[in-house]
């Protein structure tokens, strides 16, 4: 009964390729996020969606395009992958966009660009 799941968990690809990471939450939450954790373990928000609507876009290159087909899913598509995109990408969700509720994180997807 995974609350927030991501596929794949590991992704190895060549520079220049296009790839997608999928995220699903079965918690009934309205708000979902993508975070990037770099090689030094620093975590930074990339995007946030609330009920399929984009509410945060943190100066991420436009090669990254999130898509939310419904409020339980938030996918991340990356075009023309670069070496610097290698990182762990975390999806997270919380009940709604306000309040202080904790964010529930997925297991992360380790992306390696060769």
């Amino acid at each position, binding site marked *: 009964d995974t609350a927030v799941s991501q596929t794949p968990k590991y992704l190895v690809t060549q520079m220049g390729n296009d790839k997608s990471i999928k995220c699903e939450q079965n918690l009934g939450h309205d708000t979902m996020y993508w975070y990037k954790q770099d090689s030094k*373990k620093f975590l930074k928000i990339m995007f*946030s969606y609330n009920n399929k609507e984009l509410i945060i876009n943190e100066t991420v290159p436009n090669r990254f395009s999130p898509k939310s087909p419904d409020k339980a899913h938030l996918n991340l598509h990356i075009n023309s992958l670069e070496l610097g995109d290698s990182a762990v990408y*975390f999806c997270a969700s919380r009940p709604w*966009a*306000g309040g*202080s509720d904790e964010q529930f*994180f997925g*297991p*992360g997807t380790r992306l390696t660009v060769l």
Partner: protein
Amino acid sequence: AQTVTQSQPEMSVQEAETVTLSCTYDTSESDYYLFWYKQPPSRQMILVIRQEAYKQQNATENRFSVNFQKAAKSFSLKISDSQLGDAAMYFCAYLVQGGSEKLVFGKGTKLTVNP
């Protein structure tokens, strides 16, 4: 913009002893929320403890407690009776509010527990 600083990249503690991890933050808000997350080698992000800024009482969760000093903008985590399973990266985080809530993380502290 809010920032979170963890000044200890690495800490170590003997099993069964107590360790304190430091965190300071910068904000002009008066009402906000702070969190400590744990990331073991499995990579999973796990919430350890949460503190509401309007509450003067320090939060506690079993062996984990915080020392929240609002005026000093300090939010340290104390782990008592350390266990081998406490070994992990620990991240302090500030919840930015205002319609587009997001977590701003510190750079983390790697905690080693020695048997």
